[in-house]
């Protein structure tokens, strides 16, 4: 077991950290408390505050990084104030200020790290940069108690199957092109459905009313998968449906009446994409010899994905872990948690020059010092 208290000061009763997340369209602040000793069933991290404000765009619209960055810039101070108020902590109790170093969108990451650097100099509290995905994994493990799961990380920007080995979270299989969340969001745009609370959520509600399954390309290659082909194919079907292209026999019957509905398309897209995810996850489990699966990332809140994964995992007599939207959607508490773990091992913060954000930041680049 790794000693997490090598830098515990004699009179220190707990550790406290604040986490700032803004790699995509969600700005989030979280404050967490660890008590000395190993994290376990009996020694859980305490969530003091976990608030989030999502930059919403009108239906059919994507979001420009500059507007997202502006949203983060103009809300971050208010959110931090509210979070500290809510957590009832005193500023000088803070051991470190954690921020998302990457991966993510450049401009939004920048807005948040400037706030973090300013606070660090204002309060003289060390800075810790956190890999967004490691945040999801560590928070997922802490909340669900899964000690060594295969992790399926599915969000707007990422699609990865990850397994821990030798102090690294290694990427087992991943998307060869666009992330699953991105695929769902862009299809939502084609359908012009609202982005509030999230395009993925609205696709899920439509999919629940879908009845007949439309055959879509199934593109798994070994441990990886690709989705841009599926998106192009289903976009085409949707456009033919909207533009009444009667010659498309998949979409229209002989008599010209539509054979499928938007709900059917959403249903079929989910069935195909999630089947691919569950397949590569099962392959990773068999390979690593693990019986646990943890789903993290925004798309992890999808009930159909959780249901399909559960069927597979129970079939293998394993266990499935998923978190609710407080944790599986981008949040600040996960950055605080992962950052605090790093801080407890380092005993000091990053130099200012090391707090530069990066849009590309692979999960297996991080040395996981806090696990043996």
């Amino acid at each position: 077991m790794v000693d997490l208290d090598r830098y515990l000061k004699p009179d220190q009763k707990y550790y406290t950290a604040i986490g700032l997340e803004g790699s995509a369209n969600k700005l989030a602040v979280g404050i967490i408390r660890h008590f000395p000793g190993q994290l376990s069933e009996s020694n859980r991290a305490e969530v003091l505050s976990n608030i989030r404000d999502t930059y919403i765009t009108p239906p059919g619209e994507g979001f420009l990084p500059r507007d997202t960055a502006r949203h983060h810039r103009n809300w971050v101070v208010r959110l931090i104030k509210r979070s500290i108020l809510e957590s009832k902590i005193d500023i000088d109790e803070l051991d470190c200020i954690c921020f998302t170093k990457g991966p993510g969108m450049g401009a939004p990451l920048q807005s948040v790290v400037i706030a973090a650097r300013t606070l660090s100099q204002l309060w003289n509290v060390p800075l810790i940069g956190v890999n967004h995905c490691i945040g999801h994994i560590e928070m997922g493990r802490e909340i669900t108690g899964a000690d060594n799961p295969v992790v399926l990380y599915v969000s707007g920007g990422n699609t990865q199957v990850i397994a821990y080995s030798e102090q690294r979270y290694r990427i087992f299989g991943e998307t060869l092109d666009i992330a699953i969340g991105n695929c769902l969001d862009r299809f939502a745009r084609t359908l012009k459905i609202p982005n509030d609370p999230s395009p993925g959520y609205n696709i899920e509600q439509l999919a629940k009313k879908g009845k007949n399954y439309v055959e879509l390309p199934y593109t798994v290659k070994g441990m990886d998968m690709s989705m841009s082909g599926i998106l192009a194919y289903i976009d085409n079907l949707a456009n033919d449906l909207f533009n009444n292209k009667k010659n498309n026999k998949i979409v229209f019957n002989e008599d010209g009446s539509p054979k499928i509905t938007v709900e059917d398309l959403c249903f079929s897209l989910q069935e195909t994409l999630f089947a691919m995810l569950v397949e590569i996850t099962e392959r990773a489990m068999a390979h690593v010899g693990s019986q646990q699966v943890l789903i993290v990332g925004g798309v992890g809140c999808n009930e159909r994905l959780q249901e399909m994964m559960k069927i597979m995992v129970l079939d293998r007599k394993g266990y499935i872990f998923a978190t609710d939207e407080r944790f599986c959607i981008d949040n600040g508490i996960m950055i605080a948690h992962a950052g605090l773990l790093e801080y407890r091992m380092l005993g000091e913060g990053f130099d200012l020059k090391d707090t530069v954000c990066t849009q590309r930041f692979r999960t297996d680049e991080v040395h996981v010092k806090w696990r043996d």
Partner: protein
Amino acid sequence: MSDTIIENAKSHLRNIQVTVVSQGAEAIIFQTTQHPYLPSSISTSSESLKFIIKYRPPKTYRHRTLDQQLTKHRTISEARILQKLTNIAEVNAPSLIAIDSRNGILWMEHIGYELANKDISSLKNWLWQFNHDESKALTNEVQDTLRAVGRQIGELHKNDLVHGDLTSSNIILSENSKAFLIDFGLSSQSTLNEDKAVDLYVLERAILSTHPLYSYEYNKWLLEGYSSVFSGKQETKLKEILRRYEDVRLRGRKRSMLG
């Protein structure tokens, strides 16, 4: 996998006595002494009285239509690869006997024999016999065998086929010590040197993790065998594959978690 899956398999294999050999993420491998259509009196395949049945069970998490399509498609493409390998003399692979693509069933020739400890003569089990005895682990016989295995993979890649899951358990030594490649569930046709490099990298990591003591020599001999099949104008192709192999190793292609 649960017993319902084995029951399921038996419903498609009426009156066939089977024993489970292994269970992977996708398929169950059974063994039987009954040939599907040759009366035992004239079983023409060589004296082997054992046959392999590879069964892809339905995956209940998938939509039924999608599941049937996938099972059918994968069973057929694996059989097609066995067909291709029949036409490539240099590569040893099990022969196809029968296929029931709708129910995801593939009958094929059984390869290998029982080692002293009753295990199947896979390269893994065969090498493990010498684990605790350096003098036996690095003999000429082992060297020749590993070079032979390397040649098999070289011939496979020369014919633009990629295995997709090369481990020492997917290589079987026959009675007359010929090396056979098995389990083409993840195999595909590919001219890309990148795919061939990843094939080699997956094997290297597998050898490293299952035979850590002598993995340096084993991987060296495998590569020697592999390179020996590329002669004449093929050598530029070999150089390109080996260069890609280096990139893949440096990038620590995510397959690295095999180690």
